[in-house]
């Protein structure tokens, strides 16, 4: 298991979850958890994923997700989960 956090932010529209999930699925990345809210009209989705089985390296995964985000006009980033654990858990 190698956990990472995918964050998606931008203007809400039809199909954001579908398209980001499809991109992850194509790369053989398993989704472990999803949370989604609308903050001040801004769509915000956080996905915890497992990249252990991914076909490509981290840079390539990030680039593909970035491309997917550009196609639908939202910002998609991926970061290793350790960052958040380090900052918020002792």
């Amino acid at each position, binding site marked *: 298991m190698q956990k990472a*956090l995918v*964050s998606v932010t931008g203007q809400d529209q039809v199909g954001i979850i579908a398209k980001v999930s499809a991109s992850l699925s194509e790369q053989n990345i398993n989704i472990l958890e999803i*949370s989604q*809210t609308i903050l001040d009209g801004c769509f*915000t989705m*956080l996905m915890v994923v497992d990249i252990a089985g991914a076909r490509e390296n*981290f*840079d390539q995964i*990030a680039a593909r997700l970035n491309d997917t985000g550009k196609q639908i006009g939202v910002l998609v*980033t*991926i*970061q*290793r989960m*350790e*960052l*958040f*654990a*380090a*900052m*918020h*858990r002792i």
Partner: protein
Amino acid sequence: MLEANEILQTIHMIQEQHFDIRTITMGINLLDCHRNTDAETAECVYEKIVCVAGKLNQTGNDLESELGVPIVNKRLSVTPVSMISGSDPAKIADALDRAAGEVGVNLIGGYGALMHKGGTNAEYTLLESMPEVFANTKRLCGSVNVGSTRSGINMDAVRKLGSIIRRTAELTVAEDCFGCAKLVVLANAVEDNPFMAGAFHGPGEPECVVNVGVSGPGVVQRALEAVRGQPFDVVAETIKRTAFKITRVGELVAQEAAKRLGVPFGIVDLSLAPTPARGDSVAYILKEMGLEMAGAPGTTAALAMLNDMVKKGGVMASSHVGGLSGAFIPVSEDIGMIEAAEAGCLTIEKLEAMTCVCSVGLDMIAIPGDTSANAIAGIIADEAAIGMVNNKTTAVRVIPAIGKKAGESVNFGGLFGYAPIMKVNPFGNDAFIERGGRIPAPLHSLRN
């Protein structure tokens, strides 16, 4: 499990509040590169650095991509060059500059000397070479330690450095005297500082080591916006909590970088290091505390608390805290300090008071081009005295703007920013500086 708001807080720190890892600095011992001639030493230095630091840049880039935290600089620090140089240290300077370019780091520190009690022939030769070296190299930085709490102040070195700084400025007039930004004069220098221009790999350090400097004045400022009007107890607590979070990321990056590079982890330097970007300013934190501008009455107290709370919050977050750790107050690299200096709110004398309670000293301050070498030496002596008596690191990095007067400005670009030229007290000190010799260590140096 982490809460969504915690995750979003981290993301906002990075995307909106300029949180970053300011530098991963690899320290490399060069004592084993000493050969019969400086030319041979230079060759050995080049080969060792290229071999040891070859993976540093890529490792930094990989970590930046995986964690999504900007790692702004990858840098090197080396053994003070005067410990391995002879009659022609410029040859080694050239090798260091080329090696830094080859491995892809933006700065390399260590072209300097530890002269707090006295200078060797090699050290004085190196000092003399500094103006030409800083004019002819791109990435090389240097520092000279002229005093310490244990040994007093070497006033011969102080006097010499006044004229070295002036000559460096004269040789780099075309770049707004930028050469002086690469030279810092220290008292109580630390051996594991990852920040430039004062980074060097001290003689007490291991063969090779990774030190990390974190930053994030914007994050602290934003956190304080939420507690406007509340007492200092609340302000202090807020700074501590923020510093803890920032430092935890520094610790993660430091441990991971050390593991990947196969090099011991040294320290995390938990400094608030500003940049000229809006929202990345230490002066704006002071403003958020309630001062109209940095320099207003109360500034020293505000800075003292900020500096202390950064340490208290950060120290629990890392297994080894070191370096300079605290709040930096450079003028040209901090938009709030630039504005305060331009408005006449911030003077060199106030900055001097602030250096009693900040992490380092008078940093990146442009002074009039007609400031004499002895006046510069006097400024250095004053700072060194503050460091010596208060048992803290102090520094002087001033830029005499040749051909310009107070009120004009110099522009270095990038992280070095721009600086309004500040007025220097015009009264003389020649007879004082020309005495030379050594100011004895203070009484409290006798601690055994």
